[in-house]
């Protein structure tokens, strides 16, 4: 008989618990759409994904109020996923010394991040001095529309 060392291994494994995390359900549901619908309705539960590590780099969380529009992050983004936007454009009335009232369009610079282009390198969050961008925990980002609302952080 030829040497087949795998046999013992298989026998041993057949009594062990699987190491795979059975995500999102333990058994294949008859209809996946119906399964997810009942999950949203709260009738069924999904097996949670494996927890992400502490330094995980997931979908970017952008805090517009902390950002000052300096544009440093644009300089390090390898994929040009970040663009600078004039935000929010608003009309302000300016009164000069002579008392003339003029209307001006005042803009503040902020950024917009296209998550679909982002490669999650985390350079932007490393360089930002204001702590306005951080790497989040979310990773289930597959989509058909790269300009969908949740695919753009602004």
């Amino acid at each position, binding site marked *: 008989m030829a040497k087949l060392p795998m046999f013992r291994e298989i026998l041993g494994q057949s009594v062990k618990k699987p*190491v795979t995390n059975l995500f999102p359900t333990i058994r294949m549901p008859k209809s996946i759409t119906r399964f997810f619908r009942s999950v949203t309705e709260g009738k069924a539960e999904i097996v949670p994904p494996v927890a992400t590590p502490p330094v995980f780099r997931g979908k970017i969380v952008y805090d517009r109020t902390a950002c000052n529009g300096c544009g440093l992050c644009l300089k390090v983004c390898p994929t040009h996923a970040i663009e600078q936007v004039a935000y929010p454009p608003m009309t302000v009335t300016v009164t000069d010394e002579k008392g003339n009232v003029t209307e001006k369009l005042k803009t503040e610079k902020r950024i917009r991040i296209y998550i679909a282009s982002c490669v999650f390198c985390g350079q932007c969050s490393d360089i930002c001095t204001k702590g306005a961008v951080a790497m989040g925990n979310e990773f289930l980002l597959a989509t058909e529309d790269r300009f969908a609302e949740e695919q753009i952080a602004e």
Partner: protein
Amino acid sequence: MTAKKVPYIVPVGPIHPALKEPVHIELTVSGEEVISADFTPGQTHRGIEWMGLSRNPVQIVHLTDRICGICGVTHSLAFARAVEQIADITVPERADYVRTIIAEFERIQSHLLWAGVAAHELGFDTLFYLAWRVREGAMDAIELISGNRVNYDIIQIGGVRRDITEDQFEPIRRCLANYKDLFGKLKMLFLEDAVINSRCKGAGRLSFEKAMAYSTVGPTARASGCTADLRADYPYAAYGDLNVKPVLPTVYSNDINGDTYDRIVVRIFEIAQSIEIIEECLANMPVGRILWEEKVAGILAACKKAKGEAVGLHEAPRGECLHYVAMDLAEIPIAWKVKASSYSNLHVWPLILKGAQLADIPIIVASIDPCLSCTDRVVVTDAAAGRTKIFTKEELTRLSYEKTRRLMQ
């Protein structure tokens, strides 16, 4: 029956999702035997080098991470080394050690991934699952250090972006101890198995002379007896402090055949070598900074003053990886050229496929580790009769499985 005597031309490729570098292989077969083989590289041009020419090195270093899905640190390390030479940047010692540790974990996971793929090509899927399950240990360690499993993004020009902290030492050591325990088992399962022995011994043989003449690199070259290993030949990062010796098939058997079996031997034993290297690095980890310059603006300023050209090398899991960079007093390099290790090894395909059987193609093609399981779609053209038969990947894999079964009986 005359049609059978005509040599068939079997084009393989050019696109296969499992391939990192899509190529097109053309085989002339007579019956089951390959008479000659040829291939055309360069089927997928992503233009990543061109993209680099409108970006600064700090951006490019993370583009390089995406050249290959398995070699997550190889390309960025080679690129960073090239830029560091031009801009005269000295990498802190601790960063060198972190780089080495990540690079060796990458070797472990890449070799295990390959071992699994090789088993799959032979129809040995149990072993395939086992190898990939074992691989998760290295992936977890990488994830712990860098944050992500696949794209580590840990290299920065002039150092690394993440340090290995004290509390991470323990889980890494545990992971290594686990691999040490498993090593005996892996060795037995891969090298003593009767099926693997009969399918891989003598298949895809590459002689020492040919391996030298074709400038093969990495485990493919070492399996044929070439003692080429950048870590030993031109030490960089922390390899200068370590005593790395190229692994040859002689670690397991007495002679060097340069066949697929020897390539398995080399890769399996390189896993053991990598474990030792990481252990040594952890034990001798110097203290200090991990970046030459904390601020990206500082790195870019250094790049702006840099003028010259350099070659960055790294011994990737598949062999030597080369990045050529030229800079001319600007943030953006004026030239960037990448030569990945598989490119050097692909050239031996025509050689090692010659005389092989059709059913052996998947394992021989995979043996140099382009992770290619023949292909999705193979067209067999009967040139004389003008008929065309389409082989799907399943059929070709089935041929391979059937051969394994025949051998088992």
